[in-house]
């Protein structure tokens, strides 16, 4: 999907990484411009309001380096904090701002459930994920965490935004069925590495990657938290002209699904690039699938085409396991 002019543009900016493992030359942008707006997205559970606290906690591993080069800008006033808190409350209004995110559960929960069940035998049909520990990175109001908790998994939902965690916590508190399964922590993925490395059966970052400044660093952190043989699930937006036309232009200006300035196309990432990053961290990609949102029926469906939204499932190499990455790939191809 990359063409020459884009490549040249990136190269002249001098902030691209050259990767030459896949077919041809690819670029990755470790975008590092200060992102000083409060960003909030209908189909992204992760909000970047941590800037309001003057530091980038979420991407601590990379941002520490960034801080040395460019000090972060923090000039968000109380009004905007209030504004954000107000939006955070609408997380649990399924026909409100987060409608698309609620209905995305119909795709991502089965993907995560079936992807994990594939790895282990089901002990309990009612709670097929019981016994598994999952990490939902950028959990927002807990829309995905609660669904996975209901399937029996122990879910840790983390979000760098305190307001999101508050909403998630409050919503959960009404439901005794979730009290033991789901926990929320206001922290970043990097914060967990020190104590929780290699502990999770599955790590999920749904609609988060496209808001991340340092994607390689973020993916690396997520990968480290997965235990050998465990799974990483990502959903995000592709970096294509289509995703610009539909994901940004149409969604912001025509359909008014997303507030203006929500997404930066520069931060979108192609499945090939994401796959490369994941593979580099010792994973084998099992599945890359396109997702299509119909704004009239408000339903998501799987499509072959990955040029706008897509999902990726990768499995961490298990050193003790006898299966080689090659055989895993071929078996997944058969399934798809």
């Amino acid at each position, binding site marked *: 999907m990359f063409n020459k002019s884009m490549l040249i543009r990136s190269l002249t900016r001098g902030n691209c990484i050259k990767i030459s493992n896949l077919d041809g030359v690819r670029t990755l942008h470790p975008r590092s411009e200060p992102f000083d707006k409060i960003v909030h997205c209908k189909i992204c559970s992760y909000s970047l309001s941590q800037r309001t606290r003057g530091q980038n906690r979420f991407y601590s591993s990379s941002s520490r380096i960034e801080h040395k080069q460019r000090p972060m800008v923090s000039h968000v006033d109380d009004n905007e904090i*209030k504004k954000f*808190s*107000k*939006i*955070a*409350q*609408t*997380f*649990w*209004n*399924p*026909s*409100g701002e987060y*409608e698309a995110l*609620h*209905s995305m*559960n*119909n795709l991502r*929960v*089965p993907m995560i*459930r079936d992807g994990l069940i594939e790895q282990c035998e089901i002990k309990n*049909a*009612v709670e097929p994920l019981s016994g598994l520990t999952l990490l939902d990175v950028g959990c927002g109001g807990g829309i995905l965490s*609660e*669904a*996975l*908790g*209901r*399937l029996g998994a122990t879910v840790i939902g983390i979000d760098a935004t305190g*307001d999101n*965690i*508050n*909403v998630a*916590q*409050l*919503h959960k*508190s*009404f439901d*005794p069925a979730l009290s033991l399964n789901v926990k929320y922590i206001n922290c970043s993925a990097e914060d967990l590495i020190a104590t929780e490395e290699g502990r999770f059966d599955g790590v999920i970052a749904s609609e988060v990657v496209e808001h991340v400044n340092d994607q390689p660093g973020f993916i690396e952190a997520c990968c480290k938290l997965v235990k050998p043989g465990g799974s990483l699930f990502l959903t995000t937006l592709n970096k294509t002209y289509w995703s610009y036309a539909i994901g940004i232009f149409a969604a912001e200006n025509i359909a008014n699904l997303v507030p203006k300035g929500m997404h930066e196309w520069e931060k979108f990432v192609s499945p090939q690039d994401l796959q490369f990053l994941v593979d580099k961290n010792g994973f084998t990609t099992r599945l890359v699938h396109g997702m299509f949102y119909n704004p*009239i029926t*408000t339903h998501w469906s799987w499509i072959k085409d990955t040029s706008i939204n897509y999902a990726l499932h990768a499995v961490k190499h298990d050193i003790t396991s006898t299966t080689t990455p090659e055989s895993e790939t071929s078996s997944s191809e058969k399934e798809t």
Partner: protein
Amino acid sequence: MSLLSITVTALRNIVARGRCSTCVASQRLLSTDNHATGDDSGPLYDVVISGGGMVGCAMACALGHEALFEGKKILLLEAAPDKGELKLLPTYANRVCALSPASTALLDSFGAWEHIVGMRAQPVKRMQVWESCSDSMITFNKDNMQGTLAHIVENDVTQDAITRQLNKVKDRVEIRYETKVKKYKMPKPMSNMTKLDSPWVKLRLENGDALQTRLLIGADGFRSLVRESCNIHNMSWDYNQRAIVCTLQLPTQTENNVAWQRFTPTGPIAILPLDDEHSSLVWSTTPEDAKHLLALPNDSFVDALNDALWENSQKDSTAVYAGQLLDQLIRSISPAGTSTAGRQLPPHITGVDDNRGAFPLGLCHATNYVKSGVALIGDAAHRIHPLAGQGVNLGFGDVACLKNILTQAVKDGAGLGSILHLSDYERQRQRQIIPVMATVDGLNRLYRNKMSPLVLLRSLGLQTTNALNPLKDLIMSKAIA
């Protein structure tokens, strides 16, 4: 106009689930304080079904027998006392239903159908519909009288069969008889996450008990309190008709497996087979006429009924003549497809049991079948004229659809009361129910009219439809689905 308004309101629902633009987000800041789920709110159930009629019981039974609902707390609330096991009398009850194959399949899915067959059910192999103002008529049958169009089953039998299966899953479904709900409190539409608002539906019972539920299923009939408490707009009108029901005695005949229906200007008369010597009557007529008919002694009532079935005085000569011409035309095109070829004569009624009863007829339709945490099924969502025998079948259709959608929701980890999958239920059901309601309402209005042009049109239309087998197959597949 009435049809148009049903369609418009429904379309609005089907096309886009409306976003509530008037709802305003609460501006209170959030607090993470732990709070008790509220001692006064009572125990939390996964599903509460309000109303233990045929449809409500079937809902409880369908969920109770679903493997994925293991461990879920289901409660059924019924205002009437527990009737205990049905003692089948040799005489028939006056209220019967024509259960379609789809309803049979639902009842079979949780094992209730075999109880019904073990008690009594009469298969219908053929249906004949004709009218009093012309000679036109239409017949339906499947695969040369081999296929079953429907089963005529007494309501008591259906109810008992479902209750027996419900009693087998007592560990999963709690039933509270003689329980009335005083008040339903729905969650705030926005589910604003403040300290006070819980996302569950709260119920206060007449005896003072409180309970709460993730999903409330309203199966409490056409005067639904659940519907009213949700502020769901309900469109309704009275037909100014009453239906007289009773059991009829027939002369001994070889096989009684035809359902008869004659449209008269006061309303349709349906005669549904019960066994070789008995049929059930559903006679829709004006309230005055009904009062008069109910007061008649048995033999005079039988005479009045036979008159209504056989009389020719109301025939419109133009329509009869046009019908004959059309018949000749059809015969010349397709000798096999003549409209009068399959005509059978209706049975001559010889007597009537002492179980005459009457009930008013009306139509009602809820603009929405769901709200966050609430779903309406059966007559609470839609009530129709009995002329096509679709009432309870639509209700059982709701049960089958809602059960599938809730099972999928559980499988996908979705909250039971989430509006996202509940609105799928609404969409799927309205797509099926609204055309049926519009057709039934339209037929009832069309055939209560004696105006010559209308009589002419409807009789020619019916005759043509009868000659077109593919069209008849289509109608049948819609009616018995």
